[in-house]
């Protein structure tokens, strides 16, 4: 019997803001699940079509820094281009560099069920670490 796999992300309660605990078999999975988790706070992602791609390449000091920069980059596209994303793929990931793609579409207020906006990705309580044979990350958003 195989154990049920843990959920890809869970919402953490924080008095003023909202956080996520993200799990994945690999670091790549954690980066994908964190992005999916963040967008699922803002929109009913099943209603978002994956018709447009945005490529992201960035550098960071460590896994935590890369995770903040990755999610912040996606927020940039949300504000600057009104892009909502539902599908993500990490192309390459090393301790100081990430290349990834995100697919989604522009906001359609008649069709998308929008929740609250994420203003920013904070570094408070930020953590990316190995947990047994898998990976776990924790990230708090400013709402």
């Amino acid at each position, binding site marked *: 019997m195989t154990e049920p796999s843990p959920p890809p992300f869970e919402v953490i309660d924080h*008095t*003023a803001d909202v956080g996520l605990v993200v799990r994945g078999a690999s670091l790549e999975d954690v980066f994908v699940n964190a992005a999916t988790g963040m967008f699922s706070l803002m929109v009913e992602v099943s209603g978002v079509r994956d018709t447009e791609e945005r490529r992201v390449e960035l550098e960071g000091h460590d896994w935590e820094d890369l995770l903040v920069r990755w999610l912040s980059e996606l927020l940039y596209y949300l504000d600057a281009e009104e892009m909502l994303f539902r599908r993500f793929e990490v192309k390459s990931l090393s301790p100081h560099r990430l290349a990834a793609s995100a697919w989604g579409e522009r906001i359609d207020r008649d069709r998308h069920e*929008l929740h*609250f906006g994420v203003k920013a990705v904070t570094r408070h309580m930020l953590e990316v670490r190995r947990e047994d044979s898998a990976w776990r990350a924790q990230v708090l958003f400013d709402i």
Partner: protein
Amino acid sequence: MATTWKKTLQKIDDWRWLLPKEYKPGMLVPGLIFSSEEMLDVIGQDQAIEQVANVAFLPGIVKYSMAMPDIHWGYGFPIGGVAAMRVEDGVISPGGVGFDINCGTRVIRTNLSEEDVRPHLKELVNQVFRDIPAGVGGSGLVKASIKEIDEVLVKGARWAVEHGYGWPEDLEAIEGGGALPGANPDKVSHRAKQRGGPQLGTLGSGNHFLEVQVIDQIFDAEAAETMGMGSVGQVIVFVHCGSRGLGHQTCQDYLDVMEESSRKYDIRLPDRQLACAPISSREGQDYLSAMTAAANFAFCNRQLIAHWVRQAFGRIIGRDPKDMDMHIVYDVAHNIAKIERHRVNADARSGREVTVCVHRKGATRAFPPGHPDIPAKYKALGQPVLVPGDMGRYSYIAVGSEQAMAETWGSTCHGAGRVQSRGAAKRMLKGVDVAQRLADRGIYVRAQNRGLLAEEASEAYKDVATVIDVLHEAGISRRVCRMRPIGVVKG
């Protein structure tokens, strides 16, 4: 946890609690928390007091790491925190301002009564909801080029007035005239401008709102009269929002810079989100001029919103906004850092004057009567302080005091403060139609997502009256009047 805190905190008087420097090795000054004894139970439930201790680690901090009664768990600084650092050897921290640079409040008065507005309320709120986008993303009615955004970053609300959005006299009623000096658009990234540009004239989401309110209690008739808010039953408009994506990106950009500079200047911190740089360093100065530019963007944003509020009233009520006396009562930031002159002694009239960088993270400036930085019409009164509550209860207007100047670097609270997380509020109100519950009480709500209103319901917040009372009793800010909402726009 609350009882543990009560053992750690030393009671100074009924409204002041000292967090001793010995609480945590590395604190440079003690913490000072403004609260009643009952409120401490709520404040002590999360990490907020720990964050007061963490802020006390920041180099150059003077006197205390302070917290207002609406303090709650933030990221780095507590929300409701005030800290001043010496400019000579102190630091500036983007975490002490927050992502939403110059998140703040603005009140626009009218000479209409509730009876005048009631018959048009739905139409009015719907018009505002159409003209001032709220919620995720959203682009405003003004389309500004990057070059124009650069002008906004320097001129702030004045840019809006020059382009026909508002009246020249509006500027006198805004903190710093709606354009803080020292802003440098070149220090704001192109990405920040691209991110925030389309959002000029939008509310955003979270706890941001626009409310049509009615004055329901007046505590200080003379002060209320001076503000043109002297009648119970009078309608006003209360706006709460900030610098949108432009501010968020600016904070994010400089947190990256500050992570480096914390290493470079060997500043040891208990939380990465407190990353900082010496105020006198290049990094510190760059952040200060970028943050000031983002603050000006927020003043412009609220100016545009005020313009469309006037337009909406004009169209729906069918009268000229000038005839409806729709002047700005005041506009003030509650997420900001400013270089200010203060006296360090307990008696503000004597003692050495110092130049400090005052971080107000979820705290409002509350300057006393006679201060040179407040509008002439409020000189005898003190600076108006606009304090939003929650959408089911009420908001307040207060004024600053000498005591605030002497004790809190001229600062007071900024709101009610959350007590319940969004998740907890949603679970508690499961099955409750919050919009309907408000409608039953005569409050008409328009929101991007009605299902999310539970997260912003009264139950999620402290009663703002208790916050205002602590500061009134402590002599920090004086109550003027209370307003209850009748129309609410939420993201």
